[in-house]
């Protein structure tokens, strides 16, 4: 049953002895009994629903999962800050849209689904790539345009893809990924995969016509697509109240059910995503609005403070930061001491620095790569490079 609105009931003798045992066991190792203990946490705010029944606020978790969340989000945070430094050092050029502050969405979503479900997002994709199993070196190499990057250095910051983990990218044009996401769901339905697609877009893209066109088709054919609006309240420099007549993005679907979720709470995200996946596989599309926030500006060329106050940013950082929330949960359940957590962060920092050093060593792609992968070599087709050294194919 639902617990009281405040935190977990404090000392029951069983709990404190259990937690003492846990503390003395090694953290982050798989040998301890971290999987067996079940902790019940509550999301910070209840879900608001539109045309559906909201899922319950309480969610079960394990210490291993909690510590795992902390670690993953810290890695993401660290990588984004490192990308900031690299950009200022001119090792990353072009666009660089950073995700720090929004890590809970990536981590919570990944925890709720399998690797066979598909995710497609817009250009703020570094952390989703990491969540899908991407490694730091290939992410940083792609940002710096090196050949060992996830898209062979040909994509850049906005075009991270990972086909084997069903991560469909990485798209630069606002809103263009939404019909693609519905198409992926169509493919899943066609092949009867029993998997779903999570199509992420922002509050800026929520005013695109193609969203509503795709939503109509998805609802018409009951496609297993979950449209996730990562509402960080600013579409580049325009606040949501200046861009949208109705900023209740979860209600915008009208005939499609929606759910408003606190996107800074990883458990709320996880609960909402598993609820949504179940719903989508049975009933068709559903909209999730993740109420989240980004600390950096829209991209590296945007200071982020011309359209919002620094007080607002620091306020959110103090009150709603996703990593701090998990840290408080861990400390209150006495799963680790704060010095242990600091050690973990130091270790992550070193990991990221090592990855940067490794990525810096990787060379740029060969100039001949400009002409590869433009066409697929295949049946009846061969492309001519500009020097016409390649011939056309013959009929089979």
């Amino acid at each position, binding site marked *: 049953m639902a617990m009281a609105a405040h935190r977990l009931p404090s000392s029951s003798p069983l709990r404190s002895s259990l937690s003492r045992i846990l503390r003395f066991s090694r953290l982050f190792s798989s040998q301890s009994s971290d999987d067996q203990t079940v902790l019940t946490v509550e999301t910070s705010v209840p879900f608001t629903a539109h045309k559906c029944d909201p899922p319950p606020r309480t969610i079960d978790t394990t210490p291993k999962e909690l510590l795992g969340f902390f670690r993953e989000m810290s890695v993401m945070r660290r990588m984004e800050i490192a990308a900031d430094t690299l950009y200022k050092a001119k090792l990353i050029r072009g666009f660089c849209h950073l995700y720090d502050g929004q890590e809970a969405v990536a981590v919570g979503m990944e925890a709720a689904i399998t690797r066979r479900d598909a995710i497609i997002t817009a250009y703020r994709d570094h952390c989703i790539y990491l969540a899908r199993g991407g490694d730091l070196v290939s992410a940083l190499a792609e940002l710096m345009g090196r050949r060992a990057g996830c898209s062979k250095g040909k994509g850049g910051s906005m075009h991270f*893809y990972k086909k084997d983990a069903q991560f469909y990218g990485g798209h630069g044009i606002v809103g263009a990924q939404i019909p693609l996401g519905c198409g992926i769901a169509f*493919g899943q339905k066609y092949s009867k995969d029993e998997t779903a697609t999570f199509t992420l877009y922002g509050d800026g893209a929520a005013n695109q016509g193609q969203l509503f*066109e795709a939503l109509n088709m998805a609802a018409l054919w009951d496609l297993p697509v979950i449209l996730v609006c990562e509402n960080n309240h600013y579409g580049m420099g325009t606040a949501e109240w200046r861009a949208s007549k109705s900023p209740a993005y979860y209600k915008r679907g009208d005939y499609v059910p929606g759910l408003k979720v606190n996107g800074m709470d990883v458990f709320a995200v996880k609960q909402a995503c598993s609820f949504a996946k179940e719903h989508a596989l049975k009933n068709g599309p559903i909209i999730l609005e993740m109420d989240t926030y980004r600390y950096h500006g829209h991209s590296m060329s945007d200071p982020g403070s011309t359209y919002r106050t620094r007080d607002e940013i620091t306020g959110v950082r103090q009150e709603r930061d996703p990593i701090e929330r998990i840290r408080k949960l861990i400390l209150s359940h006495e799963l680790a001491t704060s010095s242990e957590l600091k050690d973990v962060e130091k270790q992550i920092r070193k990991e990221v620095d090592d990855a940067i050093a490794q990525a810096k060593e990787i060379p740029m792609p060969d100039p001949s790569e400009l002409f590869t992968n433009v*066409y697929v070599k295949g*049946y009846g087709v061969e492309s001519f490079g500009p020097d016409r050294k390649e011939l056309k194919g*013959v009929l089979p």
Partner: protein
Amino acid sequence: MAAAMHTATLPFFSSSSSSSAYKTINVSGRLRLGLAPLPGSLAGRKGSIFVIRSEAGFASGSNARARSSKLITNAVATKPDASASSTGSKPGHELLLFEALREGLDEEMARDPRVCVMGEDVGHYGGSYKVTKGLATKYGDLRVLDTPIAENSFTGMGIGAAMTGLRPVIEGMNMGFLLLAFNQISNNCGMLHYTSGGQFTIPVVIRGPGGVGRQLGAEHSQRLESYFQSIPGLQMVACSTAYNAKGLMKAAIRSENPVVLFEHVLLYNLKERIPDEEYICCLEEAEMVRPGEHVTILTYSRMRYHVMQAAKTLVNKGYDPEVIDIRSLKPFDLYTIGKSIKKTHRVLIVEECMRTGWHWGQSTSSNH
């Protein structure tokens, strides 16, 4: 339709630099006859430019795909005014061009369960030009999908489905409507293979009728070849006879690249006899319609028929034109075209397009 022609010998293989005289004659508001300078990069080089390694352009490619055992490898069609027999051994069957397209589509859908069609009114209505008639009852509503009127989104959906492994055939009811989907075609269809470093292929076919009809109005009479020309990664073909319509449709569906298949509204009712056996046309080959000696006339789609009529007049006047239907708009079949130009040293391009933006202008300035 007699046209006064201006021929000039182009200093093609000479070692001096290029830019021959460029003259255009407007015969009608819709037709543009022009002598264009050949692709700039060619003219600058000396000596033999075309590194043609094999003379066997139409060679019997022996590595046929495992599936069909009776592919016809010769893609050269008979002349449109030739009677009866096709290139096959059996008598073949007669049908209209849109039926040929449907046959090609039907065969490919039967052969590969991943092929699906999506477009406006393709399912129950049977297609606005009856190309998909009967397919919905045969294959079901999911494989022949009636979409709402949202070109941008259903093209995007087709591309997303292609990323998962399906092979959608997206129909634009009129090519002009695909302008609404230009973002999806350009960014997601053409460039995705490159920006993902080769991870994703987009084996879609985007097809639809375009071109000038009978008083359809400006918005419904557009030709989009020149707009799509600059999109990397996209292949474009234009069909002109029932034979190559079926062949190109089948080849386009089997190709791993995104292919835009341009049909023409006024050509749908062309009757022709095509072989009974299964065959495909190479996506990158041009068709030699009428071999000749004096001038090379390059054309495609409906203009082929106008050119053939004009060729009769030319022959009566004592000229011997060589007519090539280029079929593959992007990339060009430089082998056939080059061989012909090498022979005649004169080029005439006949194209149906807007006066302000024509496909050849784009393509001659691009390094194809």
